[in-house]
């Protein structure tokens, strides 16, 4: 009894530490003065207006959104077939191929961005935009391989075999049997990989130009030197987006569970 009360206190303190600072930031974002204070003095939405109309944030948002979508989609196009092959077939060097697909996790994403900047971007005509998309593809591939792999490990391949033996060609059989069965796994993988890319700071440290930078990079360059509630408001908007996507992914998975 006494012990469990001690555990309760530690747990509550830990959660205050984890979530509390974010709540305080939400409070400061509504401040009516430029000073960061809590409890907030007055109430205004001016910092939200500023965050939403700041050109560097607007451009950053569009850049982050598009490169994350391109990167995650490309990672799925490359990763799903590979995860399928790695789960279905046995072949020599399978462990090696699997390890190779997971290898980007061993390279810190900051270094990945650095390597892309030095050795890859000059070869593709110096496109920062393409460099970012490639960087996010690389970060997402191991994640997609893992999540698709675990979704496939619950899939009964004999369903696909049945479709094949009834005369369905390989590719339609894949889309008619495999994909519908792992759909919810794929959707949540897509959403989580997207959130991860969208929030990533490290790749953008090296891959950015004044015209093309990710939203986190744009936010960081604004913080340096000054602190006003604009940045808190932008952060709150990003948190809201995360909550929205998380609920969406849970809802999509919830539908699957009820069936």
């Amino acid at each position, binding site marked *: 009894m006494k*012990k469990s009360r001690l*555990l*309760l206190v530690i*747990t509550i303190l*830990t*959660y205050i*530490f*984890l979530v509390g*600072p*974010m709540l*305080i*930031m939400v409070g*400061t974002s509504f401040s009516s003065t430029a000073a*960061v204070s*809590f409890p907030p003095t007055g109430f205004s939405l001016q910092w939200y207006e500023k965050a939403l109309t700041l050109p560097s944030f607007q451009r950053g948002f569009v850049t982050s959104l598009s490169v994350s979508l391109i990167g995650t989609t490309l990672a799925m*196009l*490359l*990763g799903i*077939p*590979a995860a399928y*092959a790695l789960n*279905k077939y046995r*072949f020599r060097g399978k462990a090696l*191929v699997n390890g*190779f*697909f997971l*290898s*980007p996790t*061993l390279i*810190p*994403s*900051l*270094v*990945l961005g*650095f*390597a*892309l900047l*030095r*050795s*890859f971007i000059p070869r593709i005509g110096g496109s920062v935009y393409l460099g970012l998309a*490639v960087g996010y*593809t*690389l970060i997402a*591939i191991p994640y997609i391989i893992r999540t698709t792999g675990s979704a496939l490990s619950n899939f009964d391949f004999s369903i696909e075999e049945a479709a094949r033996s009834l005369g369905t060609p390989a590719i339609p059989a894949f889309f008619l049997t495999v994909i519908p069965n792992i759909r919810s796994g794929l959707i949540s993988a897509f959403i*989580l990989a997207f959130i991860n890319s*969208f*929030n990533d*700071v*490290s790749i953008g440290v*090296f891959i950015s130009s004044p015209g093309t930078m990710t939203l*986190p990079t744009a936010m*960081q360059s604004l913080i340096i030197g000054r*602190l006003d509630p604009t940045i*808190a408001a932008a*952060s709150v908007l*990003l*948190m809201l987006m*995360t*909550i929205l996507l*998380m609920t969406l992914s849970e809802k999509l998975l919830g539908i699957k569970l009820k069936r």
Partner: protein
Amino acid sequence: MRKRWALVLCAPGIVFLILCCAWPVLRIVLQTVYDDTGAVSFAGYAALFRKSFFTNSLTRTLRLAAITTAVCAVVGVPVSYYISRMSEKRKSLAISLATFPLLTSAIVRSICWIVLLGKKGVINNLLVGIGLIDRPLSILYTETSMLIGYIQLFMPLMLLSLVGVMESIDDELLQAAQTLGCPPVLAFIKVVVPLSVSGLITGGMLVFTGTMTAYATPSLLGGTKTKVLSTLIDQYANINSDWVSASLVAVVMIFFTVLINVLFTQIAGRLNRRQSA
């Protein structure tokens, strides 16, 4: 036939990874071990390791990663145990509350601490306001503020790695220890901690490598006197335009990431063998 299919399905991904990941990274590594004449030379590394600025950053990186991992483990074990014993409804709430910070940008979470710890931040304003201190404290831009940021950033990873393991621990073991006269806290340490080692290793690896390679937290919460490897690469490359040094530090960072991964995997493997033996 099967083999050909497997190859066809894996090939696009493999080609992409070779062109966009393996080759660029390998080039960075190779550039650091050749000198101007094209001969293999480790002179660059020798020079790097003679700079105290670099060795200080390296030891600071490892020290902060170790402290962060230790704190996350010490706090993570009791908290995840408590979460694992909650009702289903509360447990899923607790897990979502731990997952949410994980899905929030590291930059947002670092900004929270600037708002709280800064000279004109919430805590200093409060302390000065109630007259407890005369001048604002300098907490921000020190190793302390970095540690606070790291722990908040990576605690969820430790919690999520541990909760699953905790669920499989039988409460009767703990009761048995207490019935036999072991004080509750000691019983907890002697029963729960050893049984959760596999989760501690998974979580520990994620926290350690995460802290070691994080960029947003040290760059926003650290100062010029508290450089770590990631902020050092940034400084060499983006401020000094010293690409050679930046590459050297980048390779050191890869080396330690791989080393830590191998080390933790080895420990996990050894423990598995001992448990199954």
